[in-house]
Structures are given as structure tokens and as C-alpha cells.
């Protein structure tokens, strides 16, 4: 790596605003352009979707960053009863994958399912905010594989997934910010889920 590429100025390439982010993060936000810049070998720009808090009387203190994957899952199984059982499963059009690691998996997993299965019920926030965002630690690599495991986890509720193969192709990759507040622990402010482990 040449020396000129070792350092990148944390300035938005479109509006020139300073990028917002923790010193430990690998991703930085421009709230003006609603973009996130992720440094991983080559700079990756992602559109950033900020979701609106629906739980009232709570002050948003920070955002939880999730990769928002849009794509199509394909299920391959030779057993007819499994095909029939999987038809009952709801369409998993969007997948939310946590981009942070201090939250214990079980809670982020529950939140992933809640958000992914109720995507149509959650709304984007029109206002521009400058709230604190939890540092992004997860690089945007191997997300397809993680999404497949999430989907298998979901399908396993309908039938045994032994011998079942799932394919997933990402059509669109964005960064999403889920509002959260610290009040008697940590509470996510879209569905009011209490989170432990932060």
C-alpha cells in the first residue's frame, strides 16, 4: 500500500461536510447526504436509511447500525412436505444484519427477525439528525452467508432444515440506523424491544 493511500480525510466526497463516526469505527456517516462511507480495502459508499422512532416519550440517544440487504432467497429441497411447510413462511425480502458486536447475538437476532418480518410497518425518518451512532465493526463481507443462516434459522421453525439448500443474491445493500435509548438498560425505539448486553 503506498503512503498516499494510507490515510483518507474524513470528509464527504459530495458535500464536503465532516463525516460523523467513532474513532474505532470502520464506517462514517454524512447525515447531510444520507450516506455512509465504509473503509475496507477500497472505499465503499452506501446509502443510509434512518428509521423513525415510534415509541413515544423516549429521547433518541443513539442509533444501532445494521446492514440492510434486499434480495431474493431461493430454497432447494427434494422433500415435498418441506416445500409445502416452507410455503407457510413469510417472504423475507429484507434482512437486517448487525454491524456492531457489543450487543449479544441473541438480542440482535431477535431484533433482526422483528425488523425483517415487519419491514412494511417501519417508516423512514425525514428529519436530518446528528445523533450518536454505535461504531461499525462488521465489514460488509460475507453478508450473503450470514443472511442465509438467518433465513435458515427462520425456516427451521416450519420444518427440519437438514438437507435444505438456500441461495441468496443481494440486489441492494444499504446501511440502516435503528433508534435506541438508554433508559433502564437499552431499548430499541421502533418495536420497544429491550436489549441487554450493551
Amino acid at each position: 500500500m503506498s503512503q498516499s493511500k494510507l490515510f483518507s480525510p474524513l470528509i464527504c466526497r459530495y458535500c464536503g461536510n465532516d463525516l460523523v463516526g467513532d474513532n474505532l469505527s470502520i464506517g462514517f456517516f454524512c447525515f447531510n447526504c444520507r450516506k455512509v462511507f465504509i473503509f475496507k480495502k477500497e472505499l465503499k459508499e452506501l446509502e443510509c436509511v434512518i428509521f423513525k422512532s415510534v415509541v413515544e416519550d423516549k429521547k433518541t440517544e443513539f442509533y444501532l447500525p445494521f446492514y440492510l440487504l434486499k434480495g431474493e432467497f431461493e430454497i432447494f429441497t427434494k422433500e415435498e412436505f418441506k416445500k409445502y411447510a416452507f410455503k407457510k413462511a413469510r417472504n423475507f425480502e429484507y434482512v437486517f444484519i448487525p454491524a456492531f458486536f457489543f450487543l449479544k447475538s441473541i438480542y440482535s437476532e431477535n431484533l433482526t427477525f422483528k425488523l425483517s418480518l415487519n419491514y412494511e410497518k417501519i417508516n423512514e425518518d425525514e428529519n436530518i439528525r446528528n445523533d450518536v451512532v454505535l461504531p461499525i465493526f462488521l465489514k460488509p463481507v460475507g453478508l450473503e452467508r450470514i443472511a442465509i443462516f438467518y433465513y435458515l434459522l427462520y425456516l427451521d421453525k416450519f420444518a427440519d432444515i437438514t438437507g435444505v439448500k438456500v441461495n441468496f443474491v443481494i440486489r441492494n445493500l444499504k446501511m440502516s440506523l435503528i433508534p435506541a435509548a438508554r433508559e433502564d438498560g437499552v431499548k430499541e425505539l421502533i418495536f420497544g424491544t429491550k436489549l441487554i448486553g450493551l
Partner: protein
Amino acid sequence: MINVKGLKCPSCSSPIKLPYTSRVINCDYCNKRLFFEKEDFVLKFYLEEKKTVDFKDLIEKAISQKFVAESVKKEAILVKRKKRAIPFYLISGKRGGILTDCEEFLNHKRKTIYTLGQLDLAIEPQKIEKNFEKNSRVILSDFNYVYEAVSDIMDYQSLDRMRENIKNRLDGLKSLSEISREDVEIILPVIPIENIIKKGVDTQLLKGGNIEILEINIYLVYYPVEEFIFFYNKGYFKIVVDLVEGDICYGLIPAERKWFTFLSLFVSAFSGFFIGRFLRTVFGGVSITDIFSGFTIIATFFSYALFFSSLLFSALLYFSFVLMRANYAVEITKNGSSIRRLGDVGVPFLKKFLDFLLNLMGVDKNIL
């Protein structure tokens, strides 16, 4: 390889320092925030300290332990006090897979029942906590593992507790850049990072099923301790205070010698008395004339008895001499205090007897 001297700010071309703790640095000249893009850069964290620690009380408790030399309290002089940060690798990531059966081994907890000085053999068999996945065979979870990045810095039990503390206090981590390097001595990691990655991945993959590692990140977490070095009787001893828990984590304090002198005298007196009594019983009814009057078999038996008794007596006398000559210290760990022999005694088989005797003398499980 980076040429550290030639680093320049991409905005103003002024020289900048190589980032050490976090990826983001500020250019001293144009004050622009810069992101350090090197792939293998390791983030460095510092575990938050407990706010109030009563050092005086802790040190007094440590030097008031059983078998600690009484004069330590009066004569020991504090010569150095230094805050140090011990490095640990934190391996964090995501793993996923499909289990062959509905059982997942989550934790392998090892509990030590009691400390036996250097022998330290009394370890409870591994307790395996099983998490039964009743409805699902799919595993998708985060994992956090902690390994020490230096060796021979502290005893095993204290390091074990420190590892647990890091895992349980991930929310108490802050960037090392917030810590003043003048106040804290940062110990550099010695164990190669490649070994740690391999160890972490192997541990994860060994847990059964077709588990695969989906994401792996390595961080360095520095654990704060405060070292107190005392001068006593032409030598030095050390007490280390854990600043996260706010208690003693390690100490090696000179032991009271009079106990070992008494014990040595007791062993030699007992051996002399016992062997004397034995010989008196054997030779009580036999005179020299009897032995030399032609009874060859009896004569041979008595001479062997005499020879082996003398051998045993000399061995016990030598053992009591070793017992008196060896150096001892009271070792304080997070699990309690025990007596530890310092240095080599010269004769390998005597080590075991000596350590056995030390273990009998006293172990205090709950000192703090």
C-alpha cells in the same frame, strides 16, 4: 512495511505520526480528521478502572497474611509504585452452522477448588454447560474470546480471572487513546497474533457440527493493574492490585522463617528418636558375641538392618537440612494465599516432599 518517518497528511502534506490506538487521527497542522486504512491495524482498548480503590487497606491485608514474616509490616519500604496495562487479545466474530444433534457446548468453565502452591493439581473437572437447542439446529451467534498477549507475567489463576473480567465487561471498554501514556506503562504484546487467530478459530471449530467462521476480528484489550514494589531485608517483593475489581491479584511476600526452622528441628528429632527406637528393638536381645559366634544368616540380617536404618536416618537429616535452607514466600493470588518455595532445592525427589509439607501447613482460600 510502512516507512514511519515519511508519513504525510493527504490534505496539507505535513508529517504525521503513525496511529497507535485508533484508526482515526487528527493532523496537527491542518486539524483534519484522517482515517488510517491499513488492513492489519489492531484497535486497542483499555478496560475501565474501578473508581475508588483503598490501596492502604489492601496492602495491609496482604502483609497480615498467615506465615508472612512479622517484620515485613515494620521494615518493608515502598520503593516504587507503577500503574501498568497488561495486554490481552480479544477475538470477536460471528459463527454459523447447522448442528448434527440439538446440543451445543457453550462454555467450558474451569473452577479451581484450592491452590496448592506450585503443585496446583486440585482442579475441578471441567464443567460443561449445555445449551439445548430445542427448536432449531441452526447456529448463528457472536463469539468473544480472550487470550493473554504476554507470558510469564502473572500466575495462571489471576490471568484466568482477568480474562473472565474482560469478557463480562465489554461495555466498559474505552479507547486506549484516552489514557495518558505518562501515567500508565503499556506492556507490549509478545505472543504473535497469528497464533492467537489460529487458536481462536480452532476452538470455535472444535465445538461440533459444521460450524464455520463468518467473521473474525482481533482487538487488543489492556487490563489495568498497579504494582507496589517493596524493599525488605536486602531484597525486593511485589504486590499487584487489580484496578478493575479493586482487590489484590498477585503478591509474593517473604515468609516467616521460624516456622521452617521449627519444622526442620522436629523432623530431625523425630527421625533420630524413631530410628533409635527401631534399632534398640532389633538389637535389644542380641550381643556382639552372638553375632560373631557363627550364626552367619543372623549376622547378615542385622548388618543390613543397621545399614538401611543409617541410610534412612541420613536421608531424613538431609531433608530437614533442605527444609531449613530453602527460601519461602507467601504467594497471594485471586484464589487465596499459599506458601511457595523459591528456587531449586538441588535434589529433585525432595521437591515433592517439600511441596507436600508446605501444602499441609496452610492454605487460605478467602483472604480478601
